[in-house]
């Protein structure tokens, strides 16, 4: 582990200044972030958990977390192809044909940018209630329907698409996964503007879109199991969120330590900041417990849903405290600022990737064994 981190740090020390020299004030642009991903990929750091044959290092979860923390600490931009690297790539590696596995190289280098077509307007928390349909017609599936909340939908070249292929089967058993090129005729992408003014998601409309049968990932009508691979990977990412959350809390506190310029906070706010600190520390302990269980080859246990639930609620409360700490500046400030932005953004924490209500129901039924209602 030490040797690995030593190599990574040396790599970052060499490459970081080169990157900044090249991109200067455009370091946050899409092009710059793609360039950085190519650099990371060349060093074997873009997807270290992938097997070496696909350009990774085959590291375990503990190493992965350490790598992610070290990379985050370098202050470099997030990799633009994260969905492909974290979610789609591992799913293709697990279920794909040899031909399909050729996508992996493109995912590493950003030649292919992947998104996931899962959520639909009529099926929010009830993911399996999706209604987009694919009907076999010769060597193609013909797809009709609509997806929503597609992250990176505006940039993507490819989509991992969840469609209903057997409308007669029980809802979890008639779903398949198709690998779709976004420039196929009949696909229309529209950005979704969020309450914070940003548009990181898209709606994607499919009208008689022809997808070759060879693009079916995994068995026909086994899409639910195939997707679970992906969701599993997504969930283990919560461990990284908690590490970031501890950092966020420490930074917010550091910004409000009284000194010559800053007067002491009102006591109720001090106590709230301390409460956030306790929550963040305990969540960190829970996530390290989960990582060490995973590292020992054990099942993750209930921690991942507990972390998702507790983290998303804690993050939202933290944003509320931040709002209050900013005082009247949270509601009106000089031009160029965006008052209340973080507070608004945090509203999605308890909705995206499973509402808090759904996660509680899952914990009660799957972990505590309470009967379905």
């Amino acid at each position, binding site marked *: 582990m030490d040797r690995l981190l030593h190599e990574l740090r040396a790599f970052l020390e060499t490459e970081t200044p080169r990157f900044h020299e090249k991109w200067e004030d455009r370091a946050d642009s899409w092009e710059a972030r793609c360039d950085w991903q190519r650099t990371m990929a060349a060093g074997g750091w873009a997807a270290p958990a992938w097997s070496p044959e696909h350009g990774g290092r085959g590291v375990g979860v503990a190493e992965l977390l350490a790598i992610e923390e070290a990379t985050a600490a370098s202050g470099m931009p997030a990799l633009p192809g994260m969905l492909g690297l974290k979610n789609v790539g591992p799913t293709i590696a697990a279920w794909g044909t040899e031909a399909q596995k050729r996508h992996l190289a493109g995912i590493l280098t950003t030649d292919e940018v992947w998104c996931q077509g899962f959520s639909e307007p009529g099926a929010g928390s009830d993911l399996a209630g999706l209604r987009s349909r694919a009907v076999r017609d010769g060597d193609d599936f013909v797809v009709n329907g609509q997806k929503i909340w597609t992250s990176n939908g505006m940039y993507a070249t490819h989509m991992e698409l969840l469609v209903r292929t057997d409308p007669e089967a029980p809802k979890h058993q008639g779903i398949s996964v198709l690998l779709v090129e976004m420039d196929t005729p009949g696909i229309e992408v529209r950005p979704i503007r969020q309450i914070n003014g940003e548009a990181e998601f898209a709606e994607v409309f499919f009208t008689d879109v022809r997808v070759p049968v060879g693009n079916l990932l995994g068995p026909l009508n086994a899409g639910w199991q195939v997707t679970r691979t992906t969701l599993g990977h997504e969930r283990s990412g919560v461990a990284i969120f908690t590490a970031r959350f501890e950092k966020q809390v420490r930074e917010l506190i550091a910004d409000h330590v009284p000194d010559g310029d800053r007067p002491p906070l009102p006591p109720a706010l001090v106590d709230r900041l301390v409460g956030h600190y306790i929550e963040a520390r305990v969540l960190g302990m829970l996530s390290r417990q989960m990582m060490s269980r995973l590292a020992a080859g054990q099942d993750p246990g209930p921690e991942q849903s507990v972390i998702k639930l507790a983290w998303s609620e804690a993050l939202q409360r933290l944003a509320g405290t931040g709002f209050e700490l900013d005082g009247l500046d949270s*509601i009106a400030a000089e031009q160029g600022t965006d008052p209340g932005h973080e507070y608004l953004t945090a509203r999605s924490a308890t909705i995206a990737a499973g509402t808090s209500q759904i996660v509680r129901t899952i914990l009660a039924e799957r972990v505590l064994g309470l009967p379905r209602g």
Partner: protein
Amino acid sequence: MQTTTSDEREEFRRAVRGFLAQASTEDEVRRLMADPVGYDRGTWQRLTGELGLSALLVPESAGGQGLTPVEMAVVLEETGRSLLCAPAFSSAAVATLALRCADRSLTGPVLSGLAAGSTLATLASDQVPGRAVTAAEAPGGWRLSGAVTHVLDAHIADLLLVPVTADGRVRLFAVGTGTEAVEVHRLSVLDLTRKQFRVDLSAAPAQLLDDDFGAGLEAALDGAAILASAELLGAAGRCLELAVAYALEREQFGRPIGTFQAVKHLLADCLSAVEQMRAAVGAAAEFAGPESDPAERAEIASVVKSYCSEAAPRVAETLIQVLGGIGFTWEHPAHLYLRRIKSLEMMYGNAARHRARLARTLELEPA
């Protein structure tokens, strides 16, 4: 001072609600949000003319209706409910109430102008740190210099009402806008339906309205906190309606989400919050005028504003939670309510400030 019966107030509420259902539709609110002026003059003229909004709080002696904050609270519950974009809150409610708290011998002409709808005023009580406003008496009259901020609707106001503290005394001045000595800078705002400004004053000519406005300013700010609570009530009540309507209509797992106990209980807690806000605003509005006992007014203002500042955001947040993804989109009006509610939460004292004052009132903290 006129008083109304509760039946009269309900009839008045129906009239205001009916008008705003036509005049302050979601489309109109979104149009005015994006518009730099931010209100519709025709609608405002009808509000002042047909409904007598700007005259409501003005004494009869100055040509107004001489009604009380109780009736104004009815109006503001409706403006909050419909997200009205207009200077009703800034000018007809808060600024007019501030004038009612000042020396009557000097405020008459200003109040007459407000009642007639020919003048718009706004209270500018937040001074920029390090640039506090100072007043100098010169041969041609008073001149004010300094900066005020978080001023509502300063871009359309004819008069800024500026309290100035010097030598332990508070004076209230009226400053006419539209001169070079008054520079109005637009701020970025969370609540897109209500514009806010920083205003720089450079020896701006000013009219003295009250030479001893210390108690008046306290009364005005406590009254404003109660009026803000009325808007919070209206906006939160509407959020609950929207959430209930969605819970009845939206299906998940094959049935309306309103059949799920988790949703029911979230909404029941919102109902509890809204009913408590309603009772609190109703009780506090009786004390929001300058005639009430200052200590009682301060106490009830802090109770109601801290309660509503905490309860209303919970209701708006619950609306978004119940809506799920759709509540996180710009197209759904939920965030417009959340933005107005979170802004009102901070105005005229947020919960923390009013709770701290109550701690002193209750002698749990030194005064």
